[in-house]
């Protein structure tokens, strides 16, 4: 949001979606989260890096489910009744696994939020560019 868009004297607020993996909590800007779904079944994708837990079909689209515990140093989560946060990014959807039911919080937008995932740069960094397997 640009500064000029705000009303004078009024502080802007920003809403985040909070979800948990292992002992850690992550935040995402609420507008990036399209929906949260219960996971019935995830299908493994052979050849994909380990942080791609699998993929699941959602209304005709296939959403890759990302396990953040394979990217951040987190103790292995149990994912007993996992939820999947469906994220809108680059005209595509990806999902983050969460052990807890995500909830939303609102902060003044001048507060710097820790553990915030910049979804665009995450997508660019972890998007699979070449096959992860091979002899070399």
């Amino acid at each position, binding site marked *: 949001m640009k500064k000029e868009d705000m009303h004078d004297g009024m502080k802007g607020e920003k809403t985040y979606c909070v979800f948990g993996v292992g002992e850690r909590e992550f935040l995402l800007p609420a507008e990036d989260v399209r929906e949260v779904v219960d996971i019935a079944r995830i*299908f*493994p*994708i*052979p*050849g*994909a890096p380990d942080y*791609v837990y*699998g*993929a*699941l*079909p959602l*209304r*005709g*689209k*296939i*959403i*890759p489910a990302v396990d953040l515990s394979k990217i951040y140093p987190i103790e292995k989560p149990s994912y007993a009744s996992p939820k999947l946060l469906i994220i809108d990014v*680059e*005209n*595509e*959807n*990806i999902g983050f696994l969460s052990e807890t039911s995500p909830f939303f919080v609102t902060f003044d937008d001048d507060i710097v939020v820790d553990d915030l995932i910049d979804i665009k740069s995450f*997508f660019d960094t*972890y*998007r*699979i*560019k*070449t*096959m*992860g*397997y*091979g*002899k070399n």
Partner: protein
Amino acid sequence: MGKIDRSELLEYFLAEAEDYLNVLSHGIPELAVTTDRNTLLEELFRAAHTLKGAASIVRLTVTSQIAHSMEDILETFKNGQLEVEKDVVDLLLTMLDAIAHIVRDISAGKEEREGVEKQFTERVAEVLARAKVLGKESEFGLEDDYKMAEAFPAIAAEIEVSAEQPAALTETVKQQARLPEHKDTAVPVVPEDKPEDQTGRRKDDIEYFFGNFVRIDLKKIEEMFNLISEVTIMKNSMLKKTKEAGEVSEAVLFAGKKLLEEVNTFAERHAYTITDNVKYIDPLFSDFGELEFDRYDEQNLFSRKLQEMTEDITEALKELMSFYGGFQEDIKSLDKIVRFLRSDLSDSRMIDIGRLFQRFVRPIKDLAREYDRRVDFQISGQSTKIDRVIFENLFDPLMHMIRNCVSHGIEKGDERIRRGKRKEGVISLSARREGINIIIEIRDDGAGIDTKKVFNAAVKQGLIKPEEKLSREEILALIFLPGFSTADATDMTSGRGVGMNAVRSQISNINGMLEISTEVGKGTAFLIRVPSSLAITNVIVFNYGEIEFVMPTSLIEEVVQYEPAENKSRDRGDTMTMVNYRGTAIQAKKLSDVFYINGNGHADKKDNFVIVCSISNKKIGLIVDNVLIQEEAIIKPVNKFLEGLSIYSGITISGEGKVRLVLNPLKVFEGETRTFMIAPPEAESLEGRRVLIVDDSLSVRKYLSAFLTTRNLKVYSASNGGEALKMLEENEVDLIITDLEMPIMHGYELVSRIRASSKWKGIPIIVLTSRSTGKHKEKALELGADDYIIKPFDETGLMESLKKFSMLPV
């Protein structure tokens, strides 16, 4: 046929003309009232100018001349030589109506009526005289238009202007002939509710819509496709469930029948009989015999009740069965309707392959001239329909193969005669449908491929060791290796080390297969097999443990029972094993080895299967646990996040909602064919240099883009400066060709912005414009353009300029 189909170009023209007519139609009445007249005039002038150019390309001279006159008048407005007066505005509108009428005629399959433009000559001259510029010819005289047509030889020179042409227009266009007649003869009536419209034009005269085209965002079609796939998955699941329900109800009916039989037998015995031990209980019965009086004891009553109930149940079951029968019929017709819907929708993305074939006519002529060959280019099967996505992805590989045919295949004229052949070499391009696949064949009657030469070249390039023993098929497969080339390095258009490897890869991206057959002295044939539709594909489903995969049947030669080959002498010892296929041993790879997953518990079993594929003439097998079923699937592109997993060409969802991965066999075995490689040869290549075309006319963009792609350049196009800057943000570009007059952002601004940017200031810019005055040129060069070419341009001039900027080999 070998001629460019005018009806096809007319389709482009009609689509384009509609836009320009609407711009003019909305803008001209605005002239009198607008506050920003300059911008509007600029826009109108450009619309008239582009319309003129586009019309002249498709040889609509009347339209072109009227548009030209409109342009002249608008220019006098623009230069301030003439005030915007009502009578002039009316004249412009009448001229516009005349053009609209012609366009309507054209879209109805008629030709231009000659002389329509003459009715305006006098009044236009009078207006221009008023502008005190009478006698001063504007800078683009009419002659330019004809020159322009000459400069587009690929389009204009080969148009067959004949009486049959209008009839050659597509069916859709023909149907438009039934459109209501244009109302230009009606007396203009000012509608009561629209008094502000001073021109007295009705709504339908302002908005031009010829009804031939409805533009649909491809995204919309894709969305519909997604929905259809949802419905299909749902329907498949229902079909499966009804089948299960059918089995259950049959079992129930069978059990019911048996029950009825049992009950009936029981009832026969007991319904009317009294057992001996009850006889004495009722002394009254003793007077009657069994047949003389009906007696009822508990057993009798029970058995009769049982009988009645069983009959009721059977009746109900019968009703249920007949309901089920009807339901099943309904599901079946639903299935049919969904199929129709799906195929209709998929047809909306289908294009005649002939349109693709025609794009090669011109390049072949050019190549033949370049290589001093005489080529007779034959096309057949043009009406074969092909998926839009496949259509777009076929041009590059086909162009490459055709170029090879001309430069390597066809011999020079005198050599052909020496070999007892016709002086003219034949290159034929054909397409046909074979089941669910489209077969495209490129055949030449040239020199053929000498396997000895190929072998030696491969040794020289370090691709194989000289002592290797290879079969004929294996040697031919060498030409698909990355870096392979038989041509000398100085070769102009082929042999730049990109070659057939890229071609094969491009074809595999569209689930296609490429095969080659050749005979020395007789010629070479390339056979491309692609699915007719990428969206709905017939696939084989197989699994590895829990994970299910599919492979398009178009890529599969055969599925056979696994049988290890006796002779393991050629076993590579790594991941490949040898299996028996029709009596010969072929290489095969286990699915588990493809992913380096632990194969334990999936040891070779007798009941394993081998999916045999043919990859550039070489048979190769994939060993899988189990082949489940063959079915139609809707293949979706792989999620962008997973795009790098090139081993998958897509993903599909099964009827039960399972994710199935689409394997691309070429990528599966790619590592294996590469084991041939010792050192990758280096080849400097101009191929793949990128050009950005910026021009607001669709026809010019089409023409230029065809011209450049046939010269192996990658083309991006933008319709104005703004779009161009966006393209530059997203793509690396080596050269820019831009028009000057364009909406939103004109060429001058584009040039100065590019020169001002640190990122792009080094990119050469060629200005391609119809402005021929020195003033325009000076300004362009001053702002930083590197070259200035005047439309209509000739191809050599452009070629020279491209060479200057190292876009083409010198």
